[in-house]
């Protein structure tokens, strides 16, 4: 926390290197959220840049009540939420049983023959995650890629801890079912494939 405080103070004093360091430390986290929440690929980088500009503009108000990264993630989530609202893309959706899958999705390209089985599984999983409602895939990303706790994720997305856990479990169960519908179980865990 002291390191974060020092970094913030240096940025507020106008230290460009300190701000660059903050961006480099957190751009991975920001990109995880932006890439999962924003369907339009061309807007992602601009939106990520907008997030850091907001971070910079509001840094003086950060009170160190949470980790700096959690605060940045919250700004990212809110920025993406505003974007989706403008584009009239629903943020809140439930996992419906008839939720479309990759197989039913027009435009899903067949995987190239030269792909190995493992790459195919990995690509398929990524595509299946992308097909989930925004909140579910954001929770999955924050939990598995950024290793955040239920409490931290709940703080970022303004959801109760129990809801975060429930969404996470339901999404993973659904993903497992979709993978097993496409692949033989042995293909999934055999390290030689």
């Amino acid at each position, binding site marked *: 926390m002291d390191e974060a405080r020092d970094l913030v103070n240096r940025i507020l004093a106008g230290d460009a290197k300190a701000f*660059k360091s903050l*961006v*480099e430390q957190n751009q991975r986290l920001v990109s995880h959220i932006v*890439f999962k929440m924003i369907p339009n690929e061309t807007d992602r*980088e601009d939106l*990520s840049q907008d997030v850091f500009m907001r971070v910079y*503009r509001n840094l003086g*108000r950060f009170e160190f009540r949470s980790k700096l990264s959690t605060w940045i993630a919250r700004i990212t989530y809110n920025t993406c939420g505003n974007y989706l609202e403008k584009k009239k893309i629903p943020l809140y959706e439930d996992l419906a049983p008839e939720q479309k899958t990759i197989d039913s999705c027009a435009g899903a390209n067949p995987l190239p023959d030269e792909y190995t089985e493992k790459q195919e599984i990995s690509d398929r999983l990524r595509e299946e995650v992308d097909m989930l409602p925004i909140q579910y895939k954001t929770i*999955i990303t924050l939990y598995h890629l950024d290793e955040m706790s239920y409490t931290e994720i709940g703080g970022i997305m303004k959801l109760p801890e129990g809801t975060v856990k429930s969404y996470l479990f339901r999404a993973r169960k659904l993903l497992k079912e979709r993978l097993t519908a496409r692949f033989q179980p042995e293909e999934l865990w055999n390290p030689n494939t």
Partner: protein
Amino acid sequence: MESKHLTDAEIQDYLDGNAVREDSAVAEHLDSCGLCKKNLELYKCLYSGLSDGAGYELSVDFADKVVSSVGLGESRGFFRRYANVLVTIIGTVAAITALYYFTDIPKIIAGGAWLGWFDSIFKGRIYSSMTGYASSAGNTVSLIISGVLALVTIWVVDRFMIRSKRRPSSLVI
């Protein structure tokens, strides 16, 4: 326990390290139950895939772009660098001058002018000058008190309105 299969939630809890049942009991069951073990392996595969961070790359010079977009690190000219200082000095001189010419502070402080406070403030120095009331000694005291009051005002504005926000000054959005 041996006869009852683990639920998906229990397996996920086990892999997350939040198992409600004893870890050893779960492990024991997994050793003896092929179905649950298969399910566990599927989840392990899923967890491994979900932790794959590929495909989220921003441009290589992303951090530089962000830094330049907020205007940090750019060399600024002499005037821009010291603009705040210059504005503060000009403001202070203006405030002292205004107080000096438009009020008669000693008269206000002397009190007993409840009913005449309006005259004291708005007509004070001009009125005095016009009537030849002000003496040079009175002017000096007025100047000192006006100066102190102006500085206190500037400090209050700076402390409670500007510094409390602590916004970086070079932000360009």
